[in-house]
C-alpha cells in the first residue's frame, strides 16, 4: 500500500502560497463545488455530513459529526480519510501530483504559523493555465473580522496549546475528561468535551469563524458545526487535530486507544471517491500507516506537559469505584461581560472535607465544572478559566499559573430548538470539566487557599491583532451576550 504523507501547510506554502499541494486542493475544491448537493462527492454533501441546516435528501448521511464523545477523534479521522480520497481524485484530475495528500495547519508552532495560511487569505488567484485572476476557492469572507483573520490576525498561544490535553495519559474515563472524551453512544450533540476537543479544537473553530448565529450559515462558518466544513481551512484544522492524536499515541507511557468493544466496533457510514457507500469503525483507523496508508511528516511530539498538569496522569483504575460527587455549586447564572468576570463558589463543609482529602496524593481528584452555557450568538472568542486569579493581575504576564483551561461555545444551541424535526440540534447543555487538583494543591501549599470559597474567573481571549497593530488577544470582544448557568466542584475519590 502506498503511504501518503500529510505535510504542514506552512512548510508547503513557503516561499510561495501556490505550491502544487495547495494548488491541487484549490482546484479540487472548485471542482467539488460544481457538483450537485445530492452527489456524495460534492463539496456541499461532504460539508453537510458534518452538519447542515438544510433538509437532508432521502437516504443522505448528513449531520453525522461526533462531538462531546470518545468517538470525536475516530469519526473525524474516518471523515478526513474519505474526504482526502475524494479530493485527491479531483486534484489529480486537475494536474496535481499522484502523491497528493491533505495538508495540516499546525498553528501551535509560533508566529507566523498561528495565522491563517496565506493561500486561504487571498481573495483571488490565477489557476494554472489561467490568464486572469478569479475568486480563490480557498478564501471565504465568512470568518472572524474582529480582528480580521483574513487580514493576518493570529491565534494566541494559550488557545493553540495542546499541553493540557497531552497531560492526560488516559483516552477516556478518569481522570476526567480524558484525552479523547467521555464514553457515550452516537453523539451528534455536544455534551462534555474531551481534553483535545476542548483545546485547541473548539477555540480554534470559534476564533477562525468569529461570531455565528447557530440558526443559519450567514456568518462565522467555522464557529458552527452545521457550517464549519464549508470553509476549506476546516479540513486542515482537523488534519492537525488528527496529527495531535497520532503523536499523543506515539508518546507512549500508557497512552493508547480504548481497548473497548463499544468504542472499537461502532459503525459509521461514509462515501468514497466513486460515490460508493463505505462503513467503517474505530478499530479500522487506529494505525494510520498500516490501515489507512498515510502518515504525517512530523511524528515527534514535544514533551511539553506542564509540571502542574502532570499530576493529572496519576494512575487510576479504568473504572473508578465510585462516581464523582458534587460538593459545591453556584446557584445563579453569571453573565460573561466584556472583560474579566469573577464567580465565587462557596465551599460548604463537605467541600472542605473533599478538598482536604483530594490534596493528599492518590486520594482522588477535584473537578471544576462549567455548565449551562447560554448565548444569543456563538461568540467568536473563548474564555480562559482561572482559579483564584489575583485581583488586578496582568493577564499577559501572570495568568498562566491560575489558568485551568478554556471554554468556548462551539456546538452551542438553544435547548428550545431541540426537537425531532430539527435533529441536528443537540439535547441538553454544553459542559466543560477541568481537573483543579493541582491548582488547589499549589494554593494550599503557598498559603493562598481560602477554605470558605473559590473564585473562578472567566477572561475573554480572542485573536491577536495583525502584526503592527495595537492590542492583545485579551482585548478581543464579541457581539454575543454569553452566560454560564452553573459553576460547580465535584470530588472523585480514588480506589
Amino acid at each position, binding site marked *: 500500500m502506498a503511504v501518503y504523507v500529510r505535510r504542514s501547510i506552512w512548510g508547503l506554502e513557503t516561499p510561495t502560497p501556490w505550491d502544487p499541494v495547495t494548488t491541487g486542493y484549490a482546484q479540487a475544491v472548485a471542482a467539488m463545488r460544481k457538483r450537485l448537493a445530492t452527489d456524495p462527492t460534492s463539496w456541499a454533501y461532504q460539508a453537510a455530513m458534518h452538519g447542515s441546516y438544510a433538509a437532508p435528501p432521502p437516504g443522505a448521511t448528513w449531520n453525522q459529526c461526533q462531538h462531546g464523545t470518545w468517538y470525536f477523534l475516530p469519526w473525524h479521522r474516518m471523515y478526513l480519510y474519505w474526504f482526502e480520497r475524494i479530493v485527491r481524485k479531483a486534484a489529480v484530475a486537475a494536474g496535481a501530483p499522484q502523491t497528493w495528500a491533505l495538508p495540516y495547519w499546525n498553528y501551535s508552532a509560533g508566529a507566523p504559523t498561528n495565522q491563517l495560511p496565506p493561500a486561504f487569505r487571498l481573495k483571488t488567484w490565477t489557476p494554472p493555465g489561467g490568464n486572469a485572476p478569479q475568486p480563490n476557492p480557498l478564501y471565504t469572507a465568512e470568518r472572524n473580522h474582529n480582528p480580521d483573520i483574513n487580514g493576518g490576525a493570529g491565534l494566541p498561544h494559550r488557545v493553540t496549546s495542546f499541553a493540557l490535553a497531552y497531560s492526560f495519559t488516559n483516552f477516556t474515563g478518569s481522570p476526567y475528561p480524558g484525552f479523547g472524551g467521555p464514553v457515550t453512544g452516537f453523539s451528534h450533540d455536544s455534551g462534555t468535551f474531551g481534553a483535545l476537543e476542548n483545546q485547541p479544537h473548539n477555540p480554534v473553530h470559534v476564533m477562525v469563524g468569529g461570531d455565528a448565529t447557530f440558526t443559519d450559515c450567514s456568518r462565522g462558518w467555522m464557529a458552527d458545526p452545521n457550517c464549519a466544513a464549508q470553509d476549506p481551512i476546516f479540513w486542515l484544522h482537523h488534519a492537525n487535530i488528527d496529527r495531535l492524536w497520532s503523536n499523543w499515541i506515539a508518546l507512549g507511557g500508557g497512552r493508547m486507544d480504548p481497548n473497548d468493544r463499544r468504542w472499537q466496533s461502532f459503525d459509521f457510514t461514509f462515501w468514497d471517491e466513486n460515490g460508493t457507500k463505505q462503513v467503517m469503525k474505530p478499530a479500522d483507523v487506529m494505525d494510520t500507516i498500516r490501515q489507512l496508508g498515510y502518515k504525517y511528516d512530523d511524528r515527534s511530539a514535544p514533551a511539553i506537559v506542564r509540571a502542574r498538569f502532570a499530576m493529572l496522569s496519576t494512575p487510576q483504575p479504568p473504572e473508578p469505584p*465510585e*462516581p464523582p460527587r*458534587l*460538593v*459545591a455549586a453556584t*446557584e445563579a447564572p453569571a453573565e460573561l461581560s466584556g472583560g474579566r468576570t469573577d464567580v465565587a463558589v462557596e465551599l460548604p463543609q463537605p467541600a472542605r472535607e473533599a478538598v482536604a482529602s483530594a490534596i493528599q496524593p492518590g486520594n482522588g481528584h477535584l473537578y471544576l465544572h462549567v455548565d449551562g452555557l447560554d448565548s444569543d450568538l456563538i461568540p467568536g472568542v473563548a474564555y480562559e478559566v482561572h482559579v483564584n486569579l489575583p485581583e488586578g493581575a496582568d493577564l499577559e504576564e501572570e495568568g498562566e499559573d491560575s489558568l485551568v483551561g478554556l471554554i468556548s461555545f462551539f456546538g452551542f444551541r438553544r435547548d428550545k430548538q431541540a*426537537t*425531532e424535526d430539527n435533529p441536528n440540534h443537540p*439535547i441538553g447543555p454544553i459542559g466543560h470539566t477541568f481537573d483543579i487538583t493541582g491548582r488547589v494543591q499549589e494554593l494550599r501549599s503557598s498559603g493562598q487557599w481560602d477554605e470558605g470559597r473559590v473564585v473562578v474567573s472567566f477572561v475573554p481571549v480572542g485573536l491577536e491583532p495583525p502584526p503592527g497593530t495595537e492590542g492583545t488577544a485579551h482585548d478581543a470582544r464579541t457581539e454575543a451576550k454569553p452566560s454560564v448557568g*452553573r459553576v460547580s466542584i465535584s470530588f472523585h475519590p480514588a480506589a
Partner: protein
Amino acid sequence: MSRWVRRRRPGTLGLLALMAVAWAALLAAYASGHGDWFDHDRLARGLAGWTVLAGFALMALAMMGPSCLPLAGYVSANTLRPRPAVAWFFACYLLPWLAFMLAFTAADTTTHALAGEGTPAVTGAVAAAAFAAAAAWQLSRRKRNFVLACRSVDLLPARGGAACRRLGLRQGAACVGACGPMMLATMAAPYGRPLWMALLAALTYLEKAARYRRRLARPSAAVLVSVGMAYLAVGVR
C-alpha cells in the same frame, strides 16, 4: 460492598430496589390469580379508591421506572443532596402517570355505567381499537417529539428542591405523551397482561435510550396492529 453497588449514583439504588419489589409484587399477584387487582374497572367493581391508586402506582413504578433511571442518575449527579432530590424527582415523575390512569379509569367506568357491559365482540373491537390507536401513535411525529422531550434536560440548581419536582412533573407528562397510548392498550388487553407490561417497559426504555430508537416505531406498530386484529377476530369473553 460490591463494585457494582458502589458505582451506582446515590438514590438510584433505592429506585432499582423499588422497581424490583414492584415487579415481584405484580408477578406474584398474577401468578396467584389476583391479576384483577390491576384491572382498570376496579372502581366499577366497588373496590376502595386507595387500592386502585396503589395498584396503579405499582404498575407505573414497574413499567415506567426503568426508563427513568438515566435521568434519575442525572439528578443525583447534579445536586448537593442527591437522595432527597432523586426521591422528589421520581415521585413527581409518577404523578402524571397516576393522573392519566385514574382519568382513564374514570372515563371507562362512566362509559360502562351509561352503556352497560359489552358483548365479547364489542369488547374485542374496543381492545382492537386501543391497539390500533397505539400503533398509529407510534408512527406519529408528535410521539417522536414527546420522546425527545423525555430525553431533554435542563441544568438543575445544585440545591435541587422545586427544580427537581418540576423536572419530574415535566418528564412524567412528556412520557405520558410518548407512551400513554401504549399504556392504554396494555390496560385494555384482556389476555397476557404481565407479558404486555414487560414488553412495554422494555420498549419504553429502548425508545429513550437506544441509538436506533426511531427504528423501533414500525416494528412495534406492526406488533400492536397484529394483536389488535387478533382480538377483533376472536372477540373477548
